[in-house]
Every structure is written in structure tokens, then in C-alpha cells.
């Protein structure tokens, strides 16, 4: 394949506009072989990626004393006990924690998409005073580790009376506090050619209309990416959910899972793994559905041929 490449390269280097026909024979065959090689590579890689998940699933079906003694994926004994026990191990059935997590994630996703895209449009497309300063400030916000900010933030939320509710986890998202996503969308929007802005201006479109009807649909990949990451990070965010939630009825999944751990005694690993597997299903499903939108989003805007 390499020889055919250099041959065509040399041919192409002579004249830029000479069309070379796709020749059947050696080149076509090696292209198919390359495809197969790639496929095998991808398959092998997929196994490496998925092995831990397989281990986790297999461990969730093992009785407690076999979890660490047998390292293979196949176990001499299987049990469903971890799932039934784990579901009811806490004061509420696990469905309660699923519902809470879903609520928090839904709020966070809507908040992030709405507020971060607005801010990103401003930074990417509009001119205003002190723009570089605000941009630096925006980036600076994500540089401080969460552990030193959480105590002052907790005090703030206590003054607002939000401790013990789900508000501290959701409300800030409606105010673009995740600078990561602002930055992500800025990069996407900057990738959209400005000729569109000119065309829109000719048609008499104002900024918000342009943002709403052109930029937002065109940056659907960025929005979907934002939604996916917000969902995944919020779904597994442990520390702030631990700190802000006090009543067990409001607990989200990470906090609920942590209650299977006992650092002074024995943790209930089987139940922990079983509930962890269950809690992975929504994220996995969410991802599986939305990653298709990444492709579809691009094709509906007509960017793909």
C-alpha cells in the first residue's frame, strides 16, 4: 500500500489538477486488507476497553467471598443476591436514588446548554469592552481545585437556605459556572465560517435570532457533547453531592453507593458492584443514543457533502 501511495503522490505532485483514475487491482485489494486490519485492531482495543466492565459485571454476580479470590471472569458460583440485597440495603429502594440523580442531571444539562451557549456566542462572535479580561476570568474559574472552593460555597448556599436540597447542584448550571463548556462551545463556534454571519446580516437577522436559528443548530455536536459530559460528570460527582445533601431521601447515586463502603470494617463489595453496574446503564444508554446525534447533527446541516 505504501508503494501505491508514493506512486500516486509523485504523480499528483507533477500537476495539481490531473485526475488519476482509481485503478482496480493491487491498490483496491490492499485497501480492503487495510480495512480488515483496522477492524481487527479496533476489536482488540475494544476488548481492552471493556475488560474492566466485564470484570465488574462478573464480580456483581459472585458471592461475596469469591469476588477477590477468583480473578477470572467465570466463577464457580453465581448469585443474584447482590442485586436484590443491594437494591434494598438503604432506607429507600435504589430507584429513589436513580430518580434523584436523573433530576439533578436533567437540570444540569438544560442549564449548561442554555447558559454556556449564550456566553460562548458572546465570546466567539461579539465584540465588547474588556473582552480579553472576561475571557481570562472565565478560564481562571476552572483552575482552582474544588476542595478549597467547596467550604466557601457551602457557606454561601447555607445563607441562601439551599443546603439539604438539590439546588446547589443544579442552580449554578443555569448561570454558566462550568467554564469548560463555554470554552468548548467557543472553539466550535469559531470553527463556523463567518461568511454565514455576513449572509445573515444581509437578510436582516439580529444577533439573538442568528444565535438561535443558525449557530445553535450548527453547533449541535458541541451541544450534544456538552449534554453527554454534563450528564456523565454530574451522574458520578461524589464529593459535592455528599456535602450538600443531608436527607437520605434526596441522596443521589454516588452518595448511595458510598454507603456500601466501610473503611473501618468490611465493605459490601458485591452489593456495591451490583448497584454500580445498574447505575452505569443509564449513562451507557444515554451515550449510545446521543453519539448517533453527533453524526446526524452534522448531516442535517448539510455539511457532509
Amino acid at each position, binding site marked *: 500500500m505504501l508503494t501505491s501511495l508514493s506512486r500516486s503522490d509523485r504523480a499528483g505532485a507533477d500537476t495539481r489538477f490531473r485526475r488519476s483514475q482509481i485503478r482496480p487491482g493491487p491498490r483496491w485489494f490492499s485497501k480492503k486488507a487495510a480495512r480488515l486490519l483496522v477492524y481487527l485492531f479496533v476489536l482488540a482495543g475494544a476488548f481492552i476497553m471493556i475488560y474492566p466492565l466485564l470484570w465488574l459485571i462478573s464480580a456483581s454476580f459472585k458471592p461475596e467471598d469469591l469476588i477477590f479470590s477468583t480473578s477470572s471472569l467465570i466463577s464457580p458460583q453465581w448469585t443474584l443476591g447482590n442485586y436484590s440485597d443491594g437494591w434494598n440495603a438503604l432506607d429507600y429502594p435504589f430507584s429513589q436514588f436513580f430518580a434523584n440523580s436523573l433530576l439533578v442531571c436533567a437540570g444540569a444539562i438544560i442549564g449548561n446548554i442554555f447558559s454556556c451557549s449564550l*456566553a460562548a456566542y458572546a465570546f466567539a462572535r461579539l465584540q465588547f469592552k474588556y473582552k480579553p479580561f472576561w475571557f481570562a476570568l472565565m478560564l481562571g474559574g476552572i483552575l482552582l481545585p474544588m476542595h478549597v472552593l467547596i467550604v466557601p460555597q457551602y457557606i454561601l448556599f447555607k445563607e441562601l437556605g439551599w443546603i439539604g436540597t438539590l439546588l446547589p447542584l443544579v442552580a449554578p448550571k443555569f448561570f454558566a459556572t462550568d467554564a469548560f463548556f463555554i470554552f468548548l462551545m467557543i472553539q466550535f463556534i469559531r470553527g463556523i465560517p463567518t461568511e454565514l454571519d455576513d449572509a445573515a446580516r444581509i437578510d436582516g437577522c439580529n444577533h439573538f435570532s442568528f444565535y438561535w436559528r443558525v449557530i445553535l443548530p450548527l453547533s449541535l455536536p458541541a451541544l450534544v457533547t456538552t449534554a453527554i459530559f454534563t450528564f456523565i460528570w454530574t451522574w458520578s460527582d461524589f464529593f459535592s453531592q455528599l456535602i450538600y445533601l443531608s436527607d437520605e431521601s434526596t441522596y443521589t447515586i454516588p452518595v448511595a453507593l458510598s454507603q456500601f463502603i466501610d473503611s473501618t470494617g468490611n465493605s459490601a463489595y458485591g452489593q456495591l458492584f451490583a448497584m454500580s453496574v445498574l447505575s452505569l446503564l443509564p449513562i451507557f444508554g444515554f451515550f449510545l443514543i446521543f453519539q448517533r446525534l453527533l453524526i446526524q447533527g452534522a448531516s442535517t446541516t448539510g455539511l457532509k457533502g
Partner: protein
Amino acid sequence: MASTPLEAIKRYSREARSDEKRQQARPVQKRKGRATGYLFLLPWFVGMFVFTAGPVIASLYLSFTNYNLIGAPSWIGWQNYLAMFQDPQWWDAVRVTLVYVLLSVPLKLAVALLVALLLKRGLIGLGLFRAIYYIPSLLGSSVAIALLWRQIFDSDGLVNQVLNLIGIHATTSWVSTPDTALYTLVVLSVWQFGTPMLIFLAGLQQIPQEYYEAAATDGAGPVRNFFSITLPLITPLVFFNLILQMVGAFQAFTPSYIVSGGTGGPVYSTLFYTLYLYQEGFANLKMGYASAMAWVLLIAIAFFTALAFLTSRYWVFYQDERS
């Protein structure tokens, strides 16, 4: 109105590589931008000043105090900062974190881009593969991963079993030996390349297929395509991923916390900076010292980020810029 932008983009994309046309392009109208800019930023301003600025300023204040959370803070001036530079564990944390950043970030980005290219299109079960390659990132901060990682890299774990299969006789416990423990965490980080991969995938989708078709008529192969079309056009995302992975690596906490059991061991070899900060702040009730450490970290990250931004003009190509 729907057809006009499409026509415009089709018209202009064919001439995008032509220099003369670029010079002829009109500047973006800036007249109404100012007030509108602040209007669009309104939610962000509220978020900034209510939820972020207050705690940020509070943490700066705390860095000049002794604060054990239970009592009130007491002012001690620069003592925390001075103490930091004389703290051998602080230097351990700095060294460990720098090595971690310098190794994991480039590796992660390279692997993410490679896999994104492979999973761009044209494979059977593409959606499923993408989801599978993302799974490690989903499992990321769970206790289960920590336990599994210790198992895999243990003396009789999977890694050594595989090495023995291919003839290398390996008995070290990679995760329990000070010289190698950090590298197992680098591997853990690189293994979770799903996030940058996803971003690259989204960006690769945005590259118009016409470019590749045009290149094919010129006789370019896949390698030429990559270096002449793909790579330049996704440099904004390479830059984005670089910044975010670098910031994330500097702030990494969970891998070390769960794999080392919160100790940063063996022998401080996995003492990430934020882990040490967490130990000092929450376990040893030295929140003032931890805040000072946080600000030093911020300055360091800001420095490296600024460096990246300054050099970006030499290798990042934005579609909305005029040369």
C-alpha cells in the same frame, strides 16, 4: 432563510483555500455588538459574581490564615506560602504531578486522535464501538476501578500474566512499588481517553467531505489527507483538548485517591498535588495551608495555559480568522 446559509457555505467552501478570495472578504459587523455582548453574558455574569467570585476571593483570604474549619480563621500573613517551599512533601507532590502531566497528556491526546480517526466512519457497529471505547471514562472515579487496577497490576495480576505469556518473566507488583506506581496511574489516565476522543469525533464530523473529495481528485492518499486537511482543521480542538487535559491532569485527584487508598503511597510516589492539598485541608484541618497550595497551583496552571495560548497562534488555524 434556511437555504441561504447552505448556499453561502457551499459557495465559499470551494474557494476557502484561495488566498485572493480571503482578502476580499468583508469584516464582521461590530456596531451593535457591544451591548448585545453583555446581554448574552448576563447569566454568566450572575454566575460569576454570585457563585464563583465570592468563594474564589474567600479562598484567597483563607490562604493567609490558619483555619481548621471548626473555629474561626486567624490571620498569619505569608506563612503558609513560605512553609510550602520548605515542605518536603510539597516538593514530592509537585514532582509527582509534573511527571504525571508531562506523560499522560500527550499520550492521551495522541491515542484519542488515533482512535477518533479509526472510528470516524465506515465500520460495522460504529456506534457500539464508540460507546465501548468510551466505557473506561464512565468507570473512571469508581471504587470498583481502584480495586480492579490494583488487581491487574499486582504481582500475579493480568498484566504480569500477559507478560509471562509473551516470554517476559515479570513478578513485580507494579502498583505497590514506588518506582512504578505512578506509571500505572498514567496508564489509567491514558486508558480513559474517551473524552478527548469524543471531542475529536465531533470535530472530525464538521470537516466538509468536499475537501477530501477535492483532495482525492488531486491524488492524495490517507496520510496526505491527514496532515494537509484533517490536522490543520481540527487544531482548534487539539488546542482545546490540550488545555483541558493539561488542566485536568494538574488537578487530578480521584485516580490517586482511590488507587493509593488516600495515602499517596507507596513512599509518596502517587502523591498528586490535589491529593496532598485534600489531606492537609480536610484530614489535617489545615484549610489555610490547603488554600495557599490551591493558589500556587492556580498560578502554575495559569502560567502553562498562557504559554499554550501564546504559542497557539503559530499552530492553531481558526476558520473565522482573516490572515
